């Protein structure tokens, strides 16, 4: 993948102003150098400046950007992959004279031939900006689920846009300040709710949208929607055909994501999804697949034995990044610099370490299993929702809530007491049709962090209600669907695009110049999964049922039948205690907390002392709070207080006027 940046201005720019604009575009592009270390180039056009940092993967020679169509003058900068570029080239080749083999030119040709609607023909992951000199408008576009990031802000002359927020700051288009509501949403929901971000005046283009920029006007439109999951029960005879269709689709998705002019490797977490992707990739590559995973020093987080088992069974060339508390602490400042949001989990940190290992071997592209848990229903959240909905039908039952102890291993003690059970797990049981029934427990847990806010921050977010924002944004047809369908919608809106694909995806991959590819997020696979009856995804309490059935043919039984283990990473040991680094001590100190302004320095001092004394047995809520405090501090220190783009990087950007 790559990085893009640019901005619009009035046409007829005096030549005397060119150098200042070239310098501004160079600073923006240089701030994205990690996303594209192979080349950084920009172009000043009559109405827009476009910059591009390139990670060369397809048509290494011909794929230079910005790319301009000479017949029309249409110019494009683009980040990502259009996997079906080979097929689309055939479609448009009769009426468009291709000069390169690159997928960038397919985007250009599609726009020139069919206008912006061409975007709905793309299978892939992308974010782009297209300047059309014929009408002076600029189009922004983003892939269907939000794999590639794209941010924008209004300027006095028009609009500025970039793959990362820091480029908008580097170009002087926004004054860096935390957005209280965006930060509050990140803490409650795990991520800001697009278009909002953690920074004031900076907006994210929502997934599956294009935007037309014209002067200071903007018009957004959606070109695809996540289908509402099929509420039907599974009937006998469906399973076999569905399994065969899934095998075909996934094999094709893997086939397309292996398209590259450089080697493609895979992450192997030890779970079902990445093992399936690796198995299909290995079959296609004929045995040359390289895989990567991480192991944790703390056994409760570690999945190394399953990873070794998978690597042996699939005969991959496997490498492991070993991670301990000190590694996580050392990685977190870079995680937040790249991720640009408040975090309540440290799980992105090991992944930044892992992409470092990948890059050190010279590999630029990895496949992962991301997306299967969202659309084939792997998360415990789906089981929890199903069980609570079952319990809600007989709220007085003592047996129904007891089933929840299958999900919460620490619960057996409480099972004896339905009164206590219903206080903790029965939240909202009286309204099982409420739009956010599925997420009430999770949001109640993050809601407890609010009592640690500073008085000024609490004042700034008074009246802001992140769960209410999710519900308000829910389309009526989703609101009318069932609890599991709504759970999937909320996961996709909050967790998937705003967090897993962003702070825990794109940012920690591109932070080390590695591109991630996600066969389960091929929109044809998503549409297939949504059309499946519920019983082929969550059968009783077996998650990802149909994927497991497929896995029986491709993986050893111990992996195919393994229950999902949530991916998590330690927080408390990394941030407090003997191995905590200086930055973390400072981040949790009263003065630094007060300066960042989100939390109360006095309360965090007590929280840190309690965590240090807990010997690693801190409550989940306090661990999330510590992570939020540390990340808010890092955002403040690294981004809000200003940063320098290395001047050598700025000089390396080649800016031209056509």
């Amino acid at each position: 993948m790559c990085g893009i940046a640019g901005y619009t201005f009035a046409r007829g720019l005096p030549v005397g102003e060119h150098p200042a604009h070239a310098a501004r575009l160079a600073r923006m592009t240089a701030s994205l150098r990690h996303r594209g270390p192979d080349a950084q180039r920009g172009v000043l056009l009559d109405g827009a400046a476009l910059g591009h940092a390139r990670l060369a993967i397809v048509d290494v020679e011909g794929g230079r950007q910005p790319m301009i169509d000479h017949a029309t003058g249409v110019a494009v900068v683009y980040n990502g992959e259009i996997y079906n570029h080979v097929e689309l080239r055939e479609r448009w080749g009769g009426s468009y004279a291709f000069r390169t083999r690159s997928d960038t030119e397919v985007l250009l040709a599609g726009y020139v031939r069919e206008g912006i609607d061409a975007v709905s023909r793309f299978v892939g992951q992308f974010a782009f900006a297209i300047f059309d000199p014929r009408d002076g408008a600029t189009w922004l576009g983003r892939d269907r689920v939000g794999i590639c990031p794209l941010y924008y802000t209004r300027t006095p002359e028009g609009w500025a846009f970039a793959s990362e927020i820091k480029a908008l700051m580097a170009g002087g288009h926004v004054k860096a300040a935390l957005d209280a509501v965006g930060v509050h949403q990140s803490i409650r929901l795990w991520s800001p709710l697009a278009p909002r971000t953690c920074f004031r005046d900076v907006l994210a283009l929502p997934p599956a949208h294009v935007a037309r920029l014209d002067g200071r006007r903007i018009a957004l439109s959606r070109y695809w929607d996540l289908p509402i999951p099929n509420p039907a029960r599974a009937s006998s005879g469906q399973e076999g055909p569905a399994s065969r269709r899934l095998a075909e689709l996934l094999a094709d998705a893997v086939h397309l994501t292996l398209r590259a002019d450089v080697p493609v490797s895979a992450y192997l977490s030890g779970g079902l999804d990445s093992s399936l992707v690796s198995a299909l990739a290995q079959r296609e590559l004929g045995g040359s697949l390289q895989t990567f995973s991480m192991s944790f020093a703390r056994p409760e987080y570690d999945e190394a034995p399953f990873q070794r088992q998978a690597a042996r069974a699939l005969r991959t060339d496997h490498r492991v990044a070993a991670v301990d508390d000190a590694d996580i602490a050392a990685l977190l400042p870079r995680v937040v610099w790249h991720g640009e949001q408040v975090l309540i989990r440290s799980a992105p940190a090991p992944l930044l370490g892992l992409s470092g290992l990948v890059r050190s071997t010279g590999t630029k592209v990895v496949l992962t299993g991301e997306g299967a848990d969202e659309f084939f229903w792997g998360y415990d959240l789906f089981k929890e929702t199903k069980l609570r909905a079952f319990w809600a039908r007989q709220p007085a039952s003592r047996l129904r809530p007891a089933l929840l102890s299958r999900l919460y291993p620490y619960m057996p003690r409480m099972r004896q007491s339905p009164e206590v059970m219903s206080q903790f797990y029965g939240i909202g049981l009286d309204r099982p049709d409420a739009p956010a029934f599925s997420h009430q427990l999770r949001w109640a847990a993050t809601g407890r962090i609010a009592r640690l806010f500073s008085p000024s921050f609490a004042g700034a977010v008074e009246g802001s209600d992140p769960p209410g924002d999710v519900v308000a944004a829910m389309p009526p047809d989703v609101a009318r669907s069932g609890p599991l369908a709504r759970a999937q919608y909320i996961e996709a809106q909050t967790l998937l695009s705003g967090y897993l694909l962003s702070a825990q995806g794109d940012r920690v991959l591109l932070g080390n110049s590695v591109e991630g590819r996600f066969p389960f997020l091929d929109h044809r696979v998503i549409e297939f999964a949504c059309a499946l009856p519920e019983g082929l995804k969550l059968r009783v309490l077996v998650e990802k049922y149909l994927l497991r059935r497929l896995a029986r043919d491709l993986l050893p039984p111990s992996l195919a039948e393994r229950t999902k283990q949530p991916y998590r990473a330690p927080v408390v040991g990394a941030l407090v205690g003997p191995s905590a680094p200086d930055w973390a001590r400072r981040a949790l100190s009263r003065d630094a907390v007060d300066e960042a302004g989100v939390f109360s320095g006095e309360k965090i001092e007590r929280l840190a002392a309690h965590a240090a004394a807990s010997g690693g047995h801190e409550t989940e809520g306090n661990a999330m709070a510590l992570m939020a405090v540390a990340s808010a501090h890092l955002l403040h220190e690294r981004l809000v207080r200003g940063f320098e783009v290395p001047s050598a990087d700025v000089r390396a950007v080649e800016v031209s006027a056509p």
Partner: protein
Amino acid sequence: MSTEARIREFIHDTFLADDFGDDDSFLKTGLIDSTGMLELVAFIEEAFAIEVQDSELLPANLDSVRNLARFVERKTQRAAE
């Protein structure tokens, strides 16, 4: 220090709560989550040398400073008899 004062101090330090009344429900005010409740039980078992049976995990025993203090006092008296 009184039983109530020790419990208050524990809650103050562990759950970082400042303003709660002796009769405020831990659960209804969202002060304590389910793992927090287990931590609270572990605290009273250790601090007051009592054993809490699963059948005693009831809001009536555990769900406010006052209820908890009464419960602890009943248990310690019983142990002393």
